[in-house]
């Protein structure tokens, strides 16, 4: 059978979601942000909730999310997305409100906003892309940077003594009673991406059921900040990030695993 016989509209089984715009993603080649964006929009699309979904994208490589996701989005100040989302969810209790945050954003400058939105159990979804670094600003150390890992502000490797341990924000917020669902995923292989998509869907379902806060961490590469090729970075991630940030559900239906 000829390839051209296969490539016909009626045979199409996968294409970019219509909830993604035509704009070229501003991400570096192979960056997990792109996959995470697409999975999120695919979920919103499949759930048929795009008219009632409001995104909040603070500063980080994904600051331009509004250029890519074809839904209503508010761009928030660095670290403050959970506060912004809190207000939207409180004044529009029937909407699906999600934040899309990096690890510098969520676990450094935004620590207080994260902890308190979680503690209040706001009815929102937090998608937390943990790439262990400040991607956007050129690869500085993040709270999540691994021990010994090099970054532009830990050029000789992160040293626990002076810089502290990599922060497991996800485990931390899982302890808070207001948080209903906490999971850690990745998107670098088809298997992981499919699981991550399920997790994102579950999170949005929780919003629909008004269950409170759902927290989806996505461990992702910043190949550019890590100074590796995308595929190298994914392998490095499996070997180094996953042992410290193990994948899987941490809290389901309000119960710690």
């Amino acid at each position: 059978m000829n390839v051209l016989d296969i490539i016909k509209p009626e045979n199409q089984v996968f294409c970019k979601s219509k909830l993604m715009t035509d704009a070229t993603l501003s991400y570096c080649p192979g960056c997990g942000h792109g996959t995470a964006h697409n999975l999120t929009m695919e979920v919103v699309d499949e759930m048929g909730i795009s008219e009632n979904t409001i995104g909040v994208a603070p500063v980080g490589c994904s600051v331009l999310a509004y250029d890519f996701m074809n839904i209503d989005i508010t761009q928030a100040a660095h670290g403050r997305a959970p506060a912004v989302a809190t207000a939207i969810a409180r004044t529009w209790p029937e909407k699906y409100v999600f934040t899309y945050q990096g690890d510098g954003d969520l676990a450094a400058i935004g620590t207080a906003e994260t902890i308190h939105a979680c503690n209040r159990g706001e009815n929102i979804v937090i998608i937390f892309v943990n790439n262990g670094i400040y991607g956007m600003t050129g690869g500085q150390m993040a709270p999540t940077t691994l021990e010994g890992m090099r970054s532009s502000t830990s050029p000789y490797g992160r040293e626990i003594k002076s810089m502290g341990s990599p922060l497991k924000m996800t485990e931390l917020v899982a302890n808070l009673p207001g948080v209903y669902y906490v999971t850690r995923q990745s998107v670098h292989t088809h298997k992981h991406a499919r699981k991550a998509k399920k997790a994102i869907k579950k999170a949005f379902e929780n919003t629909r059921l008004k269950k409170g806060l759902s927290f989806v961490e996505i461990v992702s590469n910043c190949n550019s900040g890590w100074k590796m090729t995308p595929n190298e970075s994914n392998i490095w991630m499996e070997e180094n990030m996953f042992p410290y940030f193990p994948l899987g559900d941490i809290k389901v239906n309000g119960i710690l695993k």
Partner: protein
Amino acid sequence: MSELKLMKGNEALAEAAIRAGVDAYFGYPITPQSEVIEYLMTERPEQRTGMVVLQAESEIAAINMVYGAASTGKKVMTSSSSPGISLKLEGISYLAGAELPAVIVNVVRGGPGLGTIQPSQADYFQSVKGGGHGDYKLYVLAPASVQEMSDFVENAFDIAFKYRAPVLILSDGLIGQMMEKVNLKGQQKRLTDEEVIKRHDSWAVTGKTNRERNIITSLDLQSEKMEARVRRLMKKYEQMEKEDLRYEEFQTEDAEYLFVAYGSSARIAQKAVQLARAKGIKAGLLRPITLFPYPKKVLFDLADQVKGILSVELNAGQMVEDVRLSVEHKVPVEHFGRTGGIIHTPEEVLEALEQKIIN
């Protein structure tokens, strides 16, 4: 249907917010304005009108909550006092940059730093020049009575939505803490979600329906776009100067000397006018009600009539610069002010006029 009450300025403001149909208030306690959130929490506005009131974890969270609700077209406000307002400045700059309507209240106390909890007007510069970063301005209303604490809430929202811009109510510990009579307006209906969507569908982030998606952002990576944004803001500010300037004159018709004072200082200066007149000194008072836009033209014109002007402020000399810029050096302009929470007396003010201007 209006109602006469004895209330603190802070309480009157809070009650006015409920009655103006405000959708949400987010705040963090700080003296001398904690009564705002305390009053709101006690009044259960979620039952009275459906208004959301939330004590945030910090001033920064509060202003970003305001940013969030404002980006959906809701009527939303916050209040704080000096150090808390400093913390909100990034957020305020974002509100201005993203062109969002919102009302911020500063019940000023003496600074810098932790300062005192006594009244002050030392945040004038912060309010009308650059508080936060970048080229933006706030429309600034300065109430001088409990009645105005109440009335200005609705006025502030009208301006905020007219221009899609943040508005500041610049009060102080005196106006916020004192009780006076206040005539409360009747309850306005809060807009339904459908009405909000209908009214603000051209820009507000409420969920993308059959329209292009709406985006709220203050970011423009391209300089040309950013410059266009700044120009758009400057246009608004020019329009405010033309259409929404507010001020009050007191015995200026025949005045030979002029006090310029706003907020609580204006109350004292008004008394000083009376004392002066009693002494045969023809004094008058110009009270800017909006600090931006500033009554430049009025002052410029009054400068042709008076022999000298005293800017009376509870600070070390801030508004006096705007007075000088307005007067264009036609007559002497001096400053008199007490700081650190001390309220000047009318006698002191008159004495300052006599010493700095008349002699």
